[in-house]
Protein backbone atom coordinates (compact mmCIF):
# COMPACT_ATOMS: atom_id res chain seq x y z
CA UNK A 1 0.00 0.00 0.00
CA UNK A 2 1.10 3.50 -0.67
CA UNK A 3 0.05 7.00 0.38
CA UNK A 4 -0.04 9.40 -2.54
CA UNK A 5 0.13 13.05 -1.52
CA UNK A 6 -0.41 15.88 -3.97
CA UNK A 7 -0.03 19.61 -3.39
CA UNK A 8 -1.77 21.48 -6.21
CA UNK A 9 -3.25 24.84 -7.16
CA UNK A 10 -6.63 25.31 -5.45
CA UNK A 11 -8.64 25.88 -8.63
CA UNK A 12 -7.41 22.55 -10.04
CA UNK A 13 -9.11 20.50 -7.33
CA UNK A 14 -12.30 19.78 -9.30
CA UNK A 15 -10.41 18.57 -12.39
CA UNK A 16 -8.10 16.36 -10.33
CA UNK A 17 -10.99 14.92 -8.36
CA UNK A 18 -12.97 14.14 -11.53
CA UNK A 19 -9.93 12.50 -13.14
CA UNK A 20 -9.28 10.35 -10.07
CA UNK A 21 -12.93 9.31 -9.93
CA UNK A 22 -12.81 8.29 -13.60
CA UNK A 23 -9.65 6.29 -12.89
CA UNK A 24 -11.47 4.44 -10.09
CA UNK A 25 -10.10 6.00 -6.93
CA UNK A 26 -12.71 5.54 -4.20
CA UNK A 27 -11.87 8.20 -1.67
CA UNK A 28 -9.51 10.96 -0.71
CA UNK A 29 -8.76 13.48 2.00
CA UNK A 30 -8.49 17.13 0.96
CA UNK A 31 -7.16 19.97 3.07
CA UNK A 32 -6.29 23.60 2.54
CA UNK A 33 -2.62 24.28 2.98
CA UNK A 34 -0.12 26.95 2.15
CA UNK A 35 3.46 27.04 1.05
CA UNK A 36 5.86 27.91 -1.72
CA UNK A 37 8.38 26.29 -3.99
CA UNK A 38 10.85 27.81 -6.39
CA UNK A 39 8.36 30.51 -7.44
CA UNK A 40 8.48 32.06 -3.93
CA UNK A 41 5.43 34.13 -3.02
CA UNK A 42 4.02 37.17 -4.76
CA UNK A 43 3.65 40.85 -3.85
CA UNK A 44 0.47 42.76 -3.03
CA UNK A 45 0.13 46.54 -2.67
CA UNK A 46 -2.25 48.16 -0.19
CA UNK A 47 -2.49 51.96 -0.15
CA UNK A 48 0.97 52.09 -1.68
CA UNK A 49 2.55 49.74 0.88
CA UNK A 50 4.02 46.62 -0.71
CA UNK A 51 3.69 43.30 1.09
CA UNK A 52 5.39 40.08 0.07
CA UNK A 53 3.00 37.20 0.54
CA UNK A 54 5.41 34.32 0.96
CA UNK A 55 3.01 31.45 1.62
CA UNK A 56 0.52 30.90 -1.17
CA UNK A 57 -2.73 28.99 -0.76
CA UNK A 58 -2.56 25.36 -1.99
CA UNK A 59 -4.71 22.25 -1.80
CA UNK A 60 -3.28 19.08 -0.35
CA UNK A 61 -4.82 15.75 -1.45
CA UNK A 62 -4.06 12.46 0.27
CA UNK A 63 -5.03 9.09 -1.21
CA UNK A 64 -4.32 5.54 0.00
CA UNK A 65 -3.82 3.13 -2.92
CA UNK A 66 -2.53 -0.34 -3.74
CA UNK A 67 1.20 -0.24 -4.33
CA UNK A 68 0.88 -1.25 -8.00
CA UNK A 69 -1.62 1.59 -8.69
CA UNK A 70 0.53 4.33 -7.19
CA UNK A 71 2.40 5.32 -10.36
CA UNK A 72 -0.81 5.45 -12.41
CA UNK A 73 -2.58 7.57 -9.80
CA UNK A 74 0.35 9.97 -9.75
CA UNK A 75 0.18 10.25 -13.55
CA UNK A 76 -3.56 10.96 -13.42
CA UNK A 77 -3.05 13.72 -10.88
CA UNK A 78 -0.14 15.29 -12.73
CA UNK A 79 -2.05 15.33 -16.03
CA UNK A 80 -5.09 16.96 -14.45
CA UNK A 81 -3.23 19.46 -12.26
CA UNK A 82 -0.76 20.81 -14.81
CA UNK A 83 -1.07 24.37 -16.14
CA UNK A 84 2.56 24.61 -17.25
CA UNK A 85 3.14 27.71 -15.13
CA UNK A 86 5.20 28.05 -11.97
CA UNK A 87 3.48 26.97 -8.77
CA UNK A 88 1.74 23.89 -10.17
CA UNK A 89 2.81 21.86 -7.12
CA UNK A 90 4.22 18.41 -6.42
CA UNK A 91 3.02 14.82 -6.10
CA UNK A 92 4.76 12.03 -4.22
CA UNK A 93 4.15 8.55 -2.83
CA UNK A 94 5.40 6.83 0.32
CA UNK A 95 4.96 3.24 1.53
CA UNK A 96 2.27 2.61 4.15
CA UNK A 97 2.68 -0.06 6.84
CA UNK A 98 -0.95 -0.65 7.74
CA UNK A 99 -4.46 0.68 7.16
CA UNK A 100 -7.57 0.01 9.29
CA UNK A 101 -11.16 0.78 8.30
CA UNK A 102 -12.60 2.27 11.46
CA UNK A 103 -16.18 1.01 10.99
CA UNK A 104 -15.42 -2.70 10.39
CA UNK A 105 -11.94 -3.20 11.74
CA UNK A 106 -10.71 -4.57 8.36
CA UNK A 107 -6.94 -4.33 8.01
CA UNK A 108 -4.44 -4.05 5.19
CA UNK A 109 -5.43 -3.91 1.48
CA UNK A 110 -9.03 -4.88 2.34
CA UNK A 111 -9.42 -1.60 4.18
CA UNK A 112 -8.58 0.51 1.10
Amino acid sequence: MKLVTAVIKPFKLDEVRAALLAFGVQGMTVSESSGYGRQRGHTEVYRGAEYTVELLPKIRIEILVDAEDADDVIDVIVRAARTGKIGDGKVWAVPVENVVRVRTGERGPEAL
Partner: protein
Amino acid sequence: MDEVLELAPGDTAWLLVSASLVLLMTPGLAFFYGGMTRSKSVLNMMMMSFGAIGVVGVVYVLWGYSMSFGTDAFGEGTAGIWGDPFEFWALNGLLPGTDEADPYALSNSLLTGIPAIVVVGFQMTFAIITVALISGSIADRVKFSTWLVFTGAWVSLVYFGLAHMVWGGGLLSGDGPFGSMFTDIAPIDFAGGTVVHINAGVAGLVLALIIGKRRGFGKEPMRPHNLTLVMLGAGLLWFGWFGFNAGSAGAADGLAGLAWVNTTVATAAAMIGWLIVERLRDGHATSLGAASGVVAGLVAITPAAGALSPVGSIFLGLIAGALCALAVSLKFKLGYDDSLDVVGVHLVGGLVGTVLIGLFATETGLFYGGGIGQLVVQILVALVAIVFSGVLTLIIGLILKVTMGWRVTADDEVEGIDITQHGESAYDLDPTASGSGASGVLANATKKQGAQA
Protein backbone atom coordinates in the same frame (compact mmCIF):
# COMPACT_ATOMS: atom_id res chain seq x y z
CA MET B 1 -40.41 87.78 21.40
CA ASP B 2 -42.76 89.37 18.91
CA GLU B 3 -42.16 87.30 15.80
CA VAL B 4 -44.41 84.32 15.37
CA LEU B 5 -42.48 81.08 15.66
CA GLU B 6 -43.91 78.47 13.39
CA LEU B 7 -42.92 74.84 13.02
CA ALA B 8 -41.53 73.89 9.61
CA PRO B 9 -42.60 70.23 9.31
CA GLY B 10 -40.76 69.53 6.05
CA ASP B 11 -37.43 70.86 7.31
CA THR B 12 -37.92 69.06 10.61
CA ALA B 13 -38.57 65.77 8.83
CA TRP B 14 -35.44 66.17 6.71
CA LEU B 15 -33.31 66.92 9.74
CA LEU B 16 -34.62 63.85 11.59
CA VAL B 17 -33.79 61.72 8.55
CA SER B 18 -30.37 63.38 8.29
CA ALA B 19 -29.62 62.71 11.96
CA SER B 20 -30.45 59.04 11.42
CA LEU B 21 -28.23 58.92 8.32
CA VAL B 22 -25.29 60.46 10.16
CA LEU B 23 -25.65 58.03 13.05
CA LEU B 24 -25.42 55.17 10.53
CA MET B 25 -22.01 56.50 9.46
CA THR B 26 -20.40 55.31 12.68
CA PRO B 27 -21.30 51.62 12.23
CA GLY B 28 -20.32 52.17 8.58
CA LEU B 29 -16.96 53.46 9.75
CA ALA B 30 -16.64 50.38 11.97
CA PHE B 31 -16.92 48.20 8.83
CA PHE B 32 -14.57 50.46 6.85
CA TYR B 33 -11.90 50.33 9.55
CA GLY B 34 -12.64 46.76 10.66
CA GLY B 35 -11.97 45.30 7.23
CA MET B 36 -8.59 47.03 7.10
CA THR B 37 -7.26 45.51 10.31
CA ARG B 38 -5.87 42.02 10.68
CA SER B 39 -8.45 39.33 11.44
CA LYS B 40 -7.27 39.06 15.05
CA SER B 41 -8.29 42.66 15.83
CA VAL B 42 -11.39 43.41 13.76
CA LEU B 43 -13.78 43.23 16.71
CA ASN B 44 -11.74 45.65 18.80
CA MET B 45 -11.60 48.04 15.85
CA MET B 46 -15.38 47.93 15.44
CA MET B 47 -15.91 48.20 19.20
CA MET B 48 -13.97 51.45 19.29
CA SER B 49 -16.62 52.96 17.01
CA PHE B 50 -19.50 51.44 18.93
CA GLY B 51 -17.89 52.52 22.21
CA ALA B 52 -17.81 56.08 20.92
CA ILE B 53 -21.56 55.91 20.29
CA GLY B 54 -22.06 54.74 23.87
CA VAL B 55 -19.99 57.38 25.62
CA VAL B 56 -20.64 60.39 23.41
CA GLY B 57 -24.35 59.66 23.13
CA VAL B 58 -24.71 60.02 26.89
CA VAL B 59 -22.30 62.91 27.33
CA TYR B 60 -23.91 64.92 24.58
CA VAL B 61 -27.28 65.14 26.26
CA LEU B 62 -25.82 66.06 29.66
CA TRP B 63 -23.34 68.81 28.76
CA GLY B 64 -22.26 68.31 25.15
CA TYR B 65 -24.87 70.40 23.41
CA SER B 66 -24.52 73.14 26.01
CA MET B 67 -20.73 73.29 25.66
CA SER B 68 -21.11 73.46 21.89
CA PHE B 69 -23.93 75.92 21.49
CA GLY B 70 -24.34 77.63 24.87
CA THR B 71 -23.10 81.18 25.37
CA ASP B 72 -19.38 81.62 26.04
CA ALA B 73 -18.38 79.78 29.18
CA PHE B 74 -16.48 82.68 30.73
CA GLY B 75 -18.90 85.48 29.92
CA GLU B 76 -19.91 87.31 26.76
CA GLY B 77 -17.05 88.30 24.46
CA THR B 78 -14.40 86.23 26.23
CA ALA B 79 -12.24 83.58 24.67
CA GLY B 80 -15.09 82.05 22.71
CA ILE B 81 -13.62 78.58 23.03
CA TRP B 82 -16.18 76.60 25.03
CA GLY B 83 -19.86 77.16 25.65
CA ASP B 84 -21.28 77.16 29.17
CA PRO B 85 -21.88 73.50 30.10
CA PHE B 86 -24.68 74.39 32.52
CA GLU B 87 -26.80 76.67 30.34
CA PHE B 88 -28.56 73.77 28.63
CA TRP B 89 -27.48 71.06 31.13
CA ALA B 90 -29.44 67.87 30.40
CA LEU B 91 -31.18 69.79 27.60
CA ASN B 92 -32.85 72.19 30.01
CA GLY B 93 -34.92 74.65 28.00
CA LEU B 94 -34.70 72.63 24.79
CA LEU B 95 -37.40 70.05 25.42
CA PRO B 96 -40.72 70.24 23.61
CA GLY B 97 -43.94 70.80 25.53
CA THR B 98 -42.52 72.62 28.54
CA ASP B 99 -43.50 76.14 27.43
CA GLU B 100 -47.09 76.64 26.26
CA ALA B 101 -46.25 79.72 24.21
CA ASP B 102 -43.41 77.91 22.43
CA PRO B 103 -44.22 74.19 22.51
CA TYR B 104 -41.32 73.19 20.23
CA ALA B 105 -38.68 75.32 21.99
CA LEU B 106 -38.20 77.08 18.65
CA SER B 107 -36.92 80.25 20.30
CA ASN B 108 -33.89 78.31 21.57
CA SER B 109 -33.34 76.42 18.33
CA LEU B 110 -30.36 77.07 16.08
CA LEU B 111 -32.42 76.45 12.97
CA THR B 112 -35.53 78.33 11.96
CA GLY B 113 -38.71 76.34 12.38
CA ILE B 114 -36.99 73.16 13.59
CA PRO B 115 -37.55 72.10 17.23
CA ALA B 116 -34.44 72.48 19.36
CA ILE B 117 -34.55 68.83 20.37
CA VAL B 118 -34.23 67.76 16.71
CA VAL B 119 -31.13 69.94 16.31
CA VAL B 120 -29.68 68.30 19.42
CA GLY B 121 -30.14 64.86 17.89
CA PHE B 122 -28.59 65.95 14.58
CA GLN B 123 -25.56 67.55 16.23
CA MET B 124 -25.04 64.59 18.58
CA THR B 125 -24.37 62.28 15.66
CA PHE B 126 -21.56 64.58 14.43
CA ALA B 127 -19.81 64.43 17.81
CA ILE B 128 -20.03 60.62 17.77
CA ILE B 129 -18.54 60.08 14.31
CA THR B 130 -15.72 62.56 14.94
CA VAL B 131 -14.45 60.67 17.98
CA ALA B 132 -14.85 57.33 16.20
CA LEU B 133 -12.72 58.57 13.27
CA ILE B 134 -9.69 58.91 15.54
CA SER B 135 -9.68 55.20 16.41
CA GLY B 136 -8.24 54.26 13.01
CA SER B 137 -4.83 55.65 13.84
CA ILE B 138 -4.37 53.49 16.93
CA ALA B 139 -5.69 50.11 15.76
CA ASP B 140 -4.77 46.76 17.33
CA ARG B 141 -2.97 47.96 20.47
CA VAL B 142 -5.05 50.09 22.85
CA LYS B 143 -6.88 49.16 26.06
CA PHE B 144 -10.62 49.44 25.54
CA SER B 145 -11.08 51.10 28.94
CA THR B 146 -8.56 53.84 28.16
CA TRP B 147 -10.22 54.44 24.81
CA LEU B 148 -13.63 54.94 26.46
CA VAL B 149 -12.23 57.42 28.98
CA PHE B 150 -10.43 59.21 26.15
CA THR B 151 -13.63 59.52 24.10
CA GLY B 152 -15.42 61.26 26.98
CA ALA B 153 -12.56 63.62 27.79
CA TRP B 154 -11.67 64.41 24.20
CA VAL B 155 -15.17 65.07 22.98
CA SER B 156 -15.80 67.38 25.95
CA LEU B 157 -12.66 69.50 25.74
CA VAL B 158 -11.66 69.34 22.08
CA TYR B 159 -14.71 68.57 19.96
CA PHE B 160 -17.22 70.69 21.87
CA GLY B 161 -14.60 73.46 21.92
CA LEU B 162 -14.12 73.48 18.15
CA ALA B 163 -17.84 73.08 17.52
CA HIS B 164 -18.44 76.15 19.70
CA MET B 165 -15.69 78.11 17.98
CA VAL B 166 -16.89 77.35 14.45
CA TRP B 167 -20.66 76.84 14.73
CA GLY B 168 -21.55 78.22 18.16
CA GLY B 169 -20.61 81.84 17.56
CA GLY B 170 -17.10 81.47 19.00
CA LEU B 171 -13.54 82.28 17.96
CA LEU B 172 -13.58 80.81 14.44
CA SER B 173 -17.10 81.82 13.44
CA GLY B 174 -18.18 84.85 11.45
CA ASP B 175 -18.54 86.69 14.79
CA GLY B 176 -14.93 86.01 15.77
CA PRO B 177 -11.74 87.91 14.84
CA PHE B 178 -11.32 86.03 11.52
CA GLY B 179 -14.82 87.02 10.51
CA SER B 180 -13.99 90.72 10.70
CA MET B 181 -10.56 90.63 8.98
CA PHE B 182 -12.04 91.24 5.53
CA THR B 183 -15.33 92.89 4.68
CA ASP B 184 -18.11 90.46 3.83
CA ILE B 185 -15.92 87.41 4.27
CA ALA B 186 -16.59 84.86 7.00
CA PRO B 187 -14.82 81.54 7.53
CA ILE B 188 -16.68 78.77 5.70
CA ASP B 189 -17.09 75.33 7.25
CA PHE B 190 -20.34 74.01 5.85
CA ALA B 191 -20.53 70.61 7.55
CA GLY B 192 -17.34 70.11 9.54
CA GLY B 193 -14.03 70.22 7.66
CA THR B 194 -12.30 71.80 10.64
CA VAL B 195 -14.54 70.64 13.48
CA VAL B 196 -14.74 67.03 12.33
CA HIS B 197 -11.96 66.09 9.91
CA ILE B 198 -8.96 68.32 10.61
CA ASN B 199 -9.77 67.87 14.27
CA ALA B 200 -9.93 64.06 14.14
CA GLY B 201 -6.93 63.88 11.81
CA VAL B 202 -4.71 65.91 14.13
CA ALA B 203 -5.90 63.96 17.17
CA GLY B 204 -5.17 60.70 15.34
CA LEU B 205 -1.64 61.84 14.54
CA VAL B 206 -0.95 62.95 18.12
CA LEU B 207 -2.29 59.70 19.60
CA ALA B 208 -0.31 57.58 17.12
CA LEU B 209 2.83 59.41 18.25
CA ILE B 210 2.04 59.09 21.98
CA ILE B 211 0.99 55.45 21.83
CA GLY B 212 3.67 54.21 19.45
CA LYS B 213 3.75 51.65 16.68
CA ARG B 214 2.09 48.28 16.49
CA ARG B 215 4.51 45.47 17.22
CA GLY B 216 6.05 44.43 13.93
CA PHE B 217 5.06 47.65 12.10
CA GLY B 218 7.13 47.96 8.94
CA LYS B 219 8.53 44.43 9.35
CA GLU B 220 5.54 42.07 9.35
CA PRO B 221 2.87 42.23 6.70
CA MET B 222 -0.24 43.94 8.11
CA ARG B 223 -2.51 43.71 5.16
CA PRO B 224 -6.28 44.28 5.35
CA HIS B 225 -8.09 41.06 6.24
CA ASN B 226 -11.42 41.71 4.50
CA LEU B 227 -11.71 44.22 1.68
CA THR B 228 -15.39 43.47 1.11
CA LEU B 229 -16.08 44.86 4.59
CA VAL B 230 -14.09 47.96 3.63
CA MET B 231 -16.20 48.44 0.49
CA LEU B 232 -19.39 47.90 2.46
CA GLY B 233 -18.26 50.46 5.02
CA ALA B 234 -17.38 52.98 2.32
CA GLY B 235 -20.86 52.56 0.84
CA LEU B 236 -22.55 53.08 4.20
CA LEU B 237 -20.38 56.13 4.87
CA TRP B 238 -21.29 57.66 1.52
CA PHE B 239 -25.00 57.05 2.15
CA GLY B 240 -24.81 58.48 5.66
CA TRP B 241 -22.80 61.45 4.41
CA PHE B 242 -25.89 62.79 2.63
CA GLY B 243 -27.30 63.48 6.06
CA PHE B 244 -24.00 65.00 7.11
CA ASN B 245 -23.68 67.43 4.19
CA ALA B 246 -27.17 67.91 2.76
CA GLY B 247 -28.56 67.88 6.31
CA SER B 248 -26.17 70.67 7.25
CA ALA B 249 -28.19 72.97 4.99
CA GLY B 250 -30.55 73.03 7.95
CA ALA B 251 -33.60 72.86 5.71
CA ALA B 252 -35.09 70.77 2.92
CA ASP B 253 -34.29 73.31 0.23
CA GLY B 254 -32.13 74.07 -2.78
CA LEU B 255 -29.00 74.45 -0.70
CA ALA B 256 -29.52 70.92 0.60
CA GLY B 257 -29.87 69.76 -3.00
CA LEU B 258 -26.68 71.56 -4.00
CA ALA B 259 -24.83 69.98 -1.08
CA TRP B 260 -26.16 66.54 -2.09
CA VAL B 261 -25.00 66.87 -5.70
CA ASN B 262 -21.64 68.39 -4.75
CA THR B 263 -21.08 65.58 -2.26
CA THR B 264 -21.71 62.97 -4.91
CA VAL B 265 -19.64 64.45 -7.75
CA ALA B 266 -16.69 65.35 -5.52
CA THR B 267 -16.68 61.81 -4.15
CA ALA B 268 -16.90 60.25 -7.59
CA ALA B 269 -14.04 62.43 -8.83
CA ALA B 270 -11.91 61.70 -5.76
CA MET B 271 -12.27 57.97 -6.31
CA ILE B 272 -11.03 58.42 -9.88
CA GLY B 273 -8.20 60.67 -8.68
CA TRP B 274 -7.03 58.08 -6.16
CA LEU B 275 -7.22 55.24 -8.70
CA ILE B 276 -5.22 57.19 -11.28
CA VAL B 277 -2.41 57.74 -8.77
CA GLU B 278 -2.45 54.06 -7.84
CA ARG B 279 -2.44 52.86 -11.42
CA LEU B 280 0.53 55.07 -12.27
CA ARG B 281 2.47 54.41 -9.07
CA ASP B 282 1.69 50.78 -8.17
CA GLY B 283 0.43 49.30 -11.42
CA HIS B 284 -3.08 48.40 -10.25
CA ALA B 285 -6.30 50.25 -9.51
CA THR B 286 -7.33 48.57 -6.25
CA SER B 287 -10.60 48.15 -4.39
CA LEU B 288 -9.01 49.54 -1.24
CA GLY B 289 -7.98 52.55 -3.31
CA ALA B 290 -11.53 53.04 -4.56
CA ALA B 291 -12.97 52.85 -1.04
CA SER B 292 -10.27 55.19 0.27
CA GLY B 293 -10.81 57.65 -2.57
CA VAL B 294 -14.52 57.70 -1.78
CA VAL B 295 -13.84 58.65 1.83
CA ALA B 296 -11.18 61.21 0.84
CA GLY B 297 -13.69 62.89 -1.47
CA LEU B 298 -16.43 62.89 1.16
CA VAL B 299 -14.02 64.45 3.66
CA ALA B 300 -12.83 67.16 1.28
CA ILE B 301 -16.29 68.25 0.14
CA THR B 302 -17.61 68.39 3.72
CA PRO B 303 -16.60 72.00 4.50
CA ALA B 304 -17.28 73.11 0.93
CA ALA B 305 -20.54 71.37 0.03
CA GLY B 306 -22.68 74.51 0.15
CA ALA B 307 -20.17 76.98 -1.25
CA LEU B 308 -19.02 75.38 -4.50
CA SER B 309 -20.55 74.72 -7.89
CA PRO B 310 -20.79 71.07 -8.96
CA VAL B 311 -17.98 71.65 -11.49
CA GLY B 312 -15.82 73.22 -8.79
CA SER B 313 -16.61 70.16 -6.68
CA ILE B 314 -15.27 67.86 -9.40
CA PHE B 315 -11.92 69.67 -9.32
CA LEU B 316 -11.88 69.65 -5.52
CA GLY B 317 -12.58 65.91 -5.50
CA LEU B 318 -9.90 65.07 -8.07
CA ILE B 319 -7.28 67.05 -6.15
CA ALA B 320 -8.30 65.55 -2.81
CA GLY B 321 -8.30 61.97 -4.11
CA ALA B 322 -4.87 62.32 -5.70
CA LEU B 323 -3.28 64.13 -2.76
CA CYS B 324 -4.64 61.71 -0.17
CA ALA B 325 -3.41 58.75 -2.24
CA LEU B 326 0.06 60.26 -2.08
CA ALA B 327 -0.25 61.24 1.60
CA VAL B 328 -0.92 57.74 2.92
CA SER B 329 2.69 56.72 2.18
CA LEU B 330 4.02 59.45 4.47
CA LYS B 331 3.78 57.31 7.59
CA PHE B 332 6.35 54.86 6.27
CA LYS B 333 8.76 57.67 5.38
CA LEU B 334 8.26 59.52 8.67
CA GLY B 335 8.03 56.40 10.81
CA TYR B 336 4.75 56.85 12.71
CA ASP B 337 2.10 54.14 12.75
CA ASP B 338 -1.16 55.86 11.81
CA SER B 339 -2.54 52.39 11.24
CA LEU B 340 -5.52 53.08 8.98
CA ASP B 341 -4.45 56.49 7.63
CA VAL B 342 -6.57 58.90 9.63
CA VAL B 343 -3.93 61.54 8.91
CA GLY B 344 -3.57 60.75 5.22
CA VAL B 345 -7.32 60.76 4.59
CA HIS B 346 -8.98 62.99 7.21
CA LEU B 347 -6.32 65.55 8.05
CA VAL B 348 -5.10 65.92 4.47
CA GLY B 349 -8.60 65.66 2.99
CA GLY B 350 -9.99 68.11 5.55
CA LEU B 351 -7.19 70.58 4.82
CA VAL B 352 -7.66 70.28 1.06
CA GLY B 353 -11.38 70.98 1.39
CA THR B 354 -11.03 73.78 3.92
CA VAL B 355 -8.24 75.62 2.11
CA LEU B 356 -9.48 75.16 -1.47
CA ILE B 357 -12.76 76.85 -0.52
CA GLY B 358 -10.61 79.97 -0.77
CA LEU B 359 -10.13 79.24 -4.48
CA PHE B 360 -13.37 77.55 -5.51
CA ALA B 361 -16.12 79.27 -3.47
CA THR B 362 -18.51 80.71 -6.04
CA GLU B 363 -19.16 83.92 -4.11
CA THR B 364 -15.82 84.77 -2.53
CA GLY B 365 -13.19 82.40 -4.00
CA LEU B 366 -10.05 83.59 -5.75
CA PHE B 367 -10.93 81.80 -9.01
CA TYR B 368 -14.30 83.53 -9.05
CA GLY B 369 -12.90 87.04 -8.62
CA GLY B 370 -13.39 87.17 -4.87
CA GLY B 371 -9.79 88.10 -4.10
CA ILE B 372 -7.39 86.54 -1.64
CA GLY B 373 -9.42 87.19 1.53
CA GLN B 374 -11.33 83.92 1.74
CA LEU B 375 -8.17 81.89 1.14
CA VAL B 376 -6.31 83.70 3.94
CA VAL B 377 -9.21 83.27 6.35
CA GLN B 378 -9.55 79.56 5.53
CA ILE B 379 -5.83 78.92 6.09
CA LEU B 380 -5.84 80.78 9.41
CA VAL B 381 -8.90 78.93 10.66
CA ALA B 382 -7.32 75.59 9.69
CA LEU B 383 -4.12 76.50 11.54
CA VAL B 384 -5.99 77.48 14.70
CA ALA B 385 -7.93 74.20 14.56
CA ILE B 386 -4.68 72.21 14.14
CA VAL B 387 -2.98 73.92 17.08
CA PHE B 388 -6.03 73.73 19.35
CA SER B 389 -6.71 70.06 18.63
CA GLY B 390 -3.02 69.12 18.70
CA VAL B 391 -2.21 70.73 22.05
CA LEU B 392 -5.31 69.56 23.90
CA THR B 393 -5.11 66.02 22.50
CA LEU B 394 -1.46 65.90 23.56
CA ILE B 395 -2.38 66.86 27.13
CA ILE B 396 -5.27 64.38 27.38
CA GLY B 397 -3.21 61.62 25.73
CA LEU B 398 -0.23 62.09 28.04
CA ILE B 399 -2.38 62.20 31.19
CA LEU B 400 -3.98 58.90 30.18
CA LYS B 401 -0.57 57.45 29.36
CA VAL B 402 0.77 58.01 32.89
CA THR B 403 -2.50 57.15 34.68
CA MET B 404 -4.42 54.31 32.99
CA GLY B 405 -1.82 53.48 30.33
CA TRP B 406 -2.71 53.11 26.65
CA ARG B 407 -1.11 49.86 25.51
CA VAL B 408 -2.19 46.30 26.08
CA THR B 409 0.69 44.00 27.03
CA ALA B 410 3.03 42.79 24.30
CA ASP B 411 1.76 39.23 24.63
CA ASP B 412 -1.88 40.33 24.42
CA GLU B 413 -1.16 42.40 21.33
CA VAL B 414 0.63 39.56 19.55
CA GLU B 415 -2.00 36.98 20.49
CA GLY B 416 -4.73 39.33 19.24
CA ILE B 417 -6.60 42.14 20.91
CA ASP B 418 -10.02 40.64 20.16
CA ILE B 419 -9.48 37.59 22.33
CA THR B 420 -7.48 39.36 25.05
CA GLN B 421 -9.58 42.54 25.42
CA HIS B 422 -13.03 41.24 24.55
CA GLY B 423 -12.84 37.46 25.00
CA GLU B 424 -14.17 36.87 21.48
CA SER B 425 -12.94 35.94 18.04
CA ALA B 426 -14.56 37.38 14.95
CA TYR B 427 -14.63 34.37 12.67
CA ASP B 428 -15.21 30.65 13.06
CA LEU B 429 -14.97 29.64 9.42
CA ASP B 430 -12.83 26.53 9.71
CA PRO B 431 -13.84 24.25 12.58
CA THR B 432 -10.35 22.80 12.93
CA ALA B 433 -8.47 26.07 12.77
CA SER B 434 -7.24 27.41 16.04
CA GLY B 435 -6.36 30.74 14.43
CA SER B 436 -5.78 33.67 16.69
CA GLY B 437 -9.05 33.01 18.50
CA ALA B 438 -8.22 29.43 19.56
CA SER B 439 -11.86 28.50 19.10
CA GLY B 440 -11.90 25.34 17.00
CA VAL B 441 -12.29 21.69 17.90
CA LEU B 442 -8.54 21.12 17.89
CA ALA B 443 -8.11 23.96 20.35
CA ASN B 444 -10.84 22.49 22.55
CA ALA B 445 -9.23 19.07 22.39
CA THR B 446 -5.93 20.57 23.42
CA LYS B 447 -7.55 22.38 26.31
CA LYS B 448 -9.20 19.18 27.60
CA GLN B 449 -5.91 17.31 27.49
CA GLY B 450 -4.32 20.16 29.36
CA ALA B 451 -7.02 19.96 32.03
CA GLN B 452 -6.47 16.23 32.52
CA ALA B 453 -2.72 16.53 32.76
